[in-house]
């Protein structure tokens, strides 16, 4: 059996957070005596990830997804638990470990603002002990894949958000990491840029067999990249498995749009006790449980004059949105 490249056991992380009440009284009290409390952001989480997997971390804001990524890449220390990434303790930040990973944060940048990205790429290449010839080759290869050849020589501050994000990605991948930690990599990008980035990540994963851990609030990122998802709710792991299975489990219904022949049929259908999701004159959308689709369809088709029908899955965003606020999946 293939060994996990990332192994996490009973991982917990707490932060000390000080709070202040509003007003002058609160300010004075805060000045003389700070009230700090410990908040457990990650609670006893266990999971393993195999080489080459693309895993999506799902959860509402503040659920703890980004904290998990930060612990896995060695940026912050865990409070409790065991973890191993490529056989290393991430928080030790050994050079050999750091040369194998990368972290991309949608809202943070490492490129030097006033210089063209190419300068940051050569700097990163030097930091990762890549010689100039090899660095040149990799920059060419990655910039072709990301389609940013023209932007390499323009100061970062003059680039669009999409161009900047692609440049960030190139800077983060120049050392060919085996594990990518991506924290909302498509944040703020337009639809085309998001699609291109996803395409690039799919190709990168296929060509290098890199492991990718991803958090995103854009469900398209998750559905098009991740076969497996880990759901986090208030620091606890609530689901770890295939995305497809999760969607089936969470959404045991389908929406069916019936186009009735007459207004009379439409009226009768809407009053016959089914769950009506939408109605627009002769068009009625009914939500039906997946296990009773056959019998219900038979009943409706026999009883009413139906001109046409369409079977739809409920939008993935809607389903996942429901997962994010659930304690147990």
């Amino acid at each position: 059996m293939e060994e996990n490249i990332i192994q996490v056991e009973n991982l917990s992380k707490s932060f000390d957070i000080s709070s202040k009440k509003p007003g002058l009284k609160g300010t004075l009290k805060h000045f003389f005596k700070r009230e700090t409390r410990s908040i457990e952001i990650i609670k006893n989480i266990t999971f393993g990830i195999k080489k080459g997997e693309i895993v999506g971390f799902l959860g509402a804001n503040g659920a703890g997804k980004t904290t998990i990524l930060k612990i896995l890449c060695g940026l912050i220390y865990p409070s409790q638990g065991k973890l191993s990434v490529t056989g290393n303790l991430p928080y030790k930040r050994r050079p050999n470990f750091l040369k194998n990973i990368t972290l991309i944060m949608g809202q943070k940048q490492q490129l030097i603002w006033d210089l063209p990205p190419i300068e940051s790429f050569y700097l990163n290449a030097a930091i990762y002990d890549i010689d100039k010839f090899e660095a040149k080759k990799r920059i060419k290869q990655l910039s072709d894949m990301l389609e940013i050849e023209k932007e390499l020589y323009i100061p970062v501050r003059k680039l669009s958000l999409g161009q900047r994000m692609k440049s960030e990605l190139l800077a983060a991948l120049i050392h060919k990491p085996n594990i990518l930690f991506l924290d909302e990599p498509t944040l703020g990008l337009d639809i085309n840029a998001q699609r291109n980035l996803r395409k690039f990540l799919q190709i990168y994963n296929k060509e290098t067999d890199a492991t990718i851990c991803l958090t995103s609030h854009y469900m398209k990122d998750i559905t098009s990249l991740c076969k497996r998802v880990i759901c986090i709710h208030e620091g606890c792991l609530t689901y770890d498995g295939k995305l497809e299975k999760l969607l089936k489990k969470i959404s045991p219904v389908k929406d069916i749009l019936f186009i009735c022949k007459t207004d009379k049929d439409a009226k009768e259908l809407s009053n016959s006790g089914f769950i009506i999701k939408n109605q627009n004159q002769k068009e009625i959308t009914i939500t039906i449980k997946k296990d009773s689709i056959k019998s219900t369809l038979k009943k409706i088709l026999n009883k009413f004059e139906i001109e046409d029908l369409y079977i739809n899955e409920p939008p993935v965003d809607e389903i996942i949105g429901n997962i994010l606020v659930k304690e147990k999946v």
Partner: protein
Amino acid sequence: MFNLNKHKLITLLKVQYSNMLEYRVEIALWAVSGIIPFFMLNIWTNNNLNESINLSNVMLSRYFLSAFFVRQFSVVWVVFTFEEDALLGKISPYLIQPLNPFFRYLAQHIAEQITRFPFAIIIALIFFLINPESLWIPSLNLFLLACISTFFSFLIQFLIQSIIACFCFWTEKASSIERLLFIPTLFLSGLLAPVISFPEYVKSWIYITPFPYLIDFPANILSGNNTNIISGFFMQIFWISVLFPIFKRTWSLGTKKYTAMGS
């Protein structure tokens, strides 16, 4: 050592120098703003204070010009940059690279010094035009020793500020601690007055602190004033070797407390 090699060092310096050139006007203004020793020279000579320390006007003006040069090439601001980067989470990407982020700051400082160089020369030329009698060319040996002691002075200040910067991991506003050091640095470093002008009992205490080795010692070497070169270098090396392990320990403890706020 420290995962740093020649290739990394040269690339770091080249990139940071390119970056600093983007701010050349700002750096020129900073260079001009460092003319405090010239004001002090004016106060000293106008009030004939130099007589009390047995230094001629020419020697005193050479001392303050040297102090200006030493200051130009030993200015440190790492605590302010680091504080901002740590509080906004900007250091996160650098922390997971196989090079301590302080090397980036070190390279920024050295690149800034290189950028300052032509402006400092222009200011010196203007100074000599106004005070032609102060013109002097130090011997090559003294010049090299002054360069080395200025670099050591820069290292001492860089290490002190880096240690304070690491307190960001605990207090978040570490730069306020640095401000506590501003007054002793200003008065005891030799920026406002040569340390020989202090009373004997004060001098005996000052010389065991790192302050007189920041400006006074290198400025005395460069200007050709009498100074004990061996004990001066010994004290600079002593302070570097005391401060470096403290920095390493503070950094190691601090990064354990890092919460990657703002990212």
